[in-house]
């Protein structure tokens, strides 16, 4: 039973975010503190996760993914209630009657600095439930229901187009200079962030435009999934506007952008500095893998990234640990915090790992590409290694 139930961990973390936001005041930091605190300490102390159990009831695991929709809806209502002024859905009166919780007073006692905590807590929760599960679902291009649910989950962070770019762009161009979502050697996180966000949206638009041209449809029509994705996000923003006014819109948009930046931090460290000959297939060596227990359990095995890219149609419960793949120095949330707060330090931390990658994993043509990337990296230790050849 444990092997199924452990994947509910992410919902427990989300409950911390929800509870914190409803308690108001300094409690609004609860989700952020609990998620980062437990994940970072947990990944450091609970070690690795190599189990690859057979599941007799994959449907059970599958249904866990879809809980993200109601969970995020409830979180959205809570955010809108606390940001607004009325009593949305009679929620305040109900909380008072059921739990004796005076949400009206809690709301009064909430200052802008508290809201910053709510935004960061909601951001990481949007990324974990929305983006991560949306990613898993939109890989199932054969399953219409999964695609619709996944695109709505992604639309929360203004990224329904991820369902186009990620599958038909990123997975094909992985670890080549043509991929906006593969971080280059020496690239600073914040310059990567801009290149990646704008590069991916441009790529998604072009992929969609080419598809419509192939089918003989116009670009500016409702056939356009790129435009429909933005429409979905606009509807969510509008719902916040109706429910909680301009303040609700500002808070939601900031939380969505926080969630999106979490995705980009993950994109950054998942492939940082790795190179591939565009003519060769994607192999496990083209992703940074992590077998940290909590990172995997919390994120539906996303950290088993080497297998994910080598076999894009595998479901999360089929992903294997790949002990010999290139491995991240820390768990996901630790890497993320370092990338956000100490991007230069993280880049230096990865330098010896990249040099080891060149020696241990690269093919002949990849060594050539790696040497070029080292020369262009601006990182002295990498440039020195390139000269040594």
């Amino acid at each position, binding site marked *: 039973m444990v092997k199924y139930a452990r994947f509910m961990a992410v919902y427990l973390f989300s409950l911390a975010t929800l509870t914190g936001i409803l308690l108001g005041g300094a409690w609004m930091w609860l989700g952020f503190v609990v998620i980062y605190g437990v994940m970072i300490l947990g990944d450091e102390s609970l070690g690795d996760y190599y189990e690859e159990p057979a599941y007799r009831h994959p449907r059970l695991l599958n249904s866990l993914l879809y809980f993200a929709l109601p969970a995020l809806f409830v979180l959205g209502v809570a955010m809108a209630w606390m940001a607004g002024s009325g009593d949305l859905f009679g929620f305040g009166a109900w909380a008072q009657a059921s739990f004796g919780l005076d949400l009206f007073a809690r709301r009064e006692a909430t200052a802008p600095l508290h809201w910053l905590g709510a935004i960061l807590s909601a951001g990481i929760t949007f990324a974990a439930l929305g983006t991560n599960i949306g990613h898993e679902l939109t*890989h199932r*291009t*054969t399953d219409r229901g999964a695609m619709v649910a996944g695109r709505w989950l992604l639309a929360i962070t203004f990224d329904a187009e991820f369902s*186009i770019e990620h*599958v*038909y762009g990123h*997975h*094909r161009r992985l670890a080549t200079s043509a991929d906006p979502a593969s971080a280059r050697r020496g690239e600073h996180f914040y310059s990567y962030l801009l290149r990646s966000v704008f590069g991916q949206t441009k790529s998604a638009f072009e*992929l969609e435009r*080419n*598809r419509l*041209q*192939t*089918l*003989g449809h116009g670009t500016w029509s409702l056939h356009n999934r790129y435009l429909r994705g933005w429409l979905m996000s606009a509807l969510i923003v509008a719902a916040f506007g109706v429910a909680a006014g301009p303040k609700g819109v500002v808070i939601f948009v900031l939380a969505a952008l926080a969630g999106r930046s979490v995705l980009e931090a993950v994109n950054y460290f998942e492939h940082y500095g790795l190179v591939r*000959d*565009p*003519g*060769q*297939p*994607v192999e496990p060596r083209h992703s940074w893998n992590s077998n940290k227990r909590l990172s995997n359990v919390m994120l539906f095995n996303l950290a088993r990234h080497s297998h994910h890219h080598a*076999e*894009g*149609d595998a479901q999360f419960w089929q992903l294997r640990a790949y002990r010999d793949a290139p491995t991240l120095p820390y768990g996901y949330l630790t890497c993320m915090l370092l990338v956000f707060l100490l991007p230069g330090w993280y880049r230096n931390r990865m330098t010896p790992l990249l040099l080891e990658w060149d020696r241990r994993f690269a*093919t*002949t*043509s*990849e060594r050539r590409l790696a040497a070029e990337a080292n020369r262009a990296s601006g990182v002295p230790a990498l440039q020195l290694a390139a000269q040594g050849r």
Partner: protein
Amino acid sequence: MLRDLFRRREPEAARVSVEPFGWEFDVAPGQTILQAALAQGLPWPSRCRVGSCTTCRCRLLEGDVRALTDTSYVLSREQLQQRYVLACQSQPKGSVRVHLDRMKATLAADVPSQPAAAVD
């Protein structure tokens, strides 16, 4: 006779023949052409197996297939008009005949230093 009429029909395997190599094999219900070909040990070229790299593409000469994914992201208009399909995303509807442009041995894809142009 009556028993035959009322018996639930078992889904049947579909026969696939591949030009110009003369390969013939059955595709079980729910299986894709590529899965069946690889299970036979045939050197069908493939890479991503999720309908994005187009390495496994082949041209339909006869019959029809059910496409699991939207191949319009990855195949050109000309290719669609010429009835190209992706073997990894195609379940045959009845017997089909397809044309495969190259087999894996002629791709030389396994030599690490091979430039991309030689593959596509």
